[in-house]
């Protein structure tokens, strides 16, 4: 996809997330108003009052869930605004992890980002970076077992940054990935062009007998 096509897709998606938020805001206020009236009638005889309160709380909970999803989708859409920006790698990993929780859940696997203690500012293409991070996640999801945990852990390197992405048993703590192999797994070869645009590499590495990948990013700011 060209930068122009990506920006168009982002603009359309961002516009729709605004509309979804407006819908959710109206549902939230309408159900809130019903709660207000219910509170005003607390002493009056209304046989289903408690049930109504429960249902309204459920609606508010689902609205909150919808808002979180549309906020994240909006942020994703705006990541297509500019082909290159300076971003925080911790934040982008948090975003990718959130957006792919459903894929992990379908595999009965947990997905978790472990932020680096230090800020990791890099200058890169946010959309394509998310694309290769998601591709790495799907690659490992295909090799995971139920109850596995997939961890994404960014770290600073010289001269850039890297993201260790590894499968681990849920109870274990993440181990450092060492001795990566230089070859890109065949299933990820289709992403070589995008990796080149990002000036990045993906290297496979085994940790404790389980699959892992390292995304190496050469540019930082």
């Amino acid at each position, binding site marked *: 996809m060209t930068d122009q096509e990506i920006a168009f897709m982002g603009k359309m998606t961002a516009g729709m997330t*605004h509309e979804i*938020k407006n819908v959710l*805001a109206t549902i939230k*206020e309408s159900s809130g*108003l019903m709660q207000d009236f219910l509170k005003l009638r607390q002493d009056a005889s209304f046989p289903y009052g408690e049930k109504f309160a429960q249902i309204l709380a459920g609606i508010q909970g689902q609205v909150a869930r919808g808002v979180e999803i549309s*906020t994240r989708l909006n942020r994703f859409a705006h990541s297509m605004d500019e082909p290159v920006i300076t971003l925080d790698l911790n934040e982008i990993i948090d975003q990718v992890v959130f957006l792919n929780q459903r894929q992990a859940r379908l595999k009965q696997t947990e997905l978790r980002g472990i932020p680096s203690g230090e800020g990791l500012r890099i200058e890169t293409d946010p959309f394509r970076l998310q694309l290769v991070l998601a591709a790495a996640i799907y690659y490992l999801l295909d090799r995971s077992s139920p109850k596995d945990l997939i961890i994404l852990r960014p770290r600073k390197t010289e001269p850039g940054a890297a993201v260790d992405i590894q499968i681990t048993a849920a109870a274990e703590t993440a181990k450092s990935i060492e001795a990566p192999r230089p070859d890109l797994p065949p299933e990820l070869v289709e992403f070589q062009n995008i990796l080149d645009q990002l000036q990045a590499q993906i290297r496979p590495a085994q940790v404790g007998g389980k699959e892992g990948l390292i995304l190496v990013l050469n540019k930082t700011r």
Partner: protein
Amino acid sequence: MKVLLVDDEAEFINTLAERLQLRGFQVLTSTDGEAALQAVEEDGPQVVLLDVMMPGLGGLEVLQRIKGKHPSIQVILLTGRGSTREGIEGMRQGAFDFLMKPIKIEELMEKMKAAYEVFQKGATEPEVKPL
């Protein structure tokens, strides 16, 4: 306290207006920027809750016009974006504060009360006019 709610989502502001009225606020509503500016002139709200993204006259433009003519009126912006960028930009242009959509009514009331206190302070101070 007299507040003006401005958003092109009529159902949203009408419902919000009703909720605020139940809590003792005097509430006016407008569904576009032009009508909001007219309401500011005719009805004299002390606090304005203003949506940033509206067809026609946008929220930031309305903010500038309100603050240009009535600096003591406090404006709280309402933004639907996933980031705080628009809100911060609005505060740079004179907004009292901003809220992300959908709002929490308790948070809105707190901000409105704080904005009203600032309004009262501003309204008692004489305006400095150039010689």
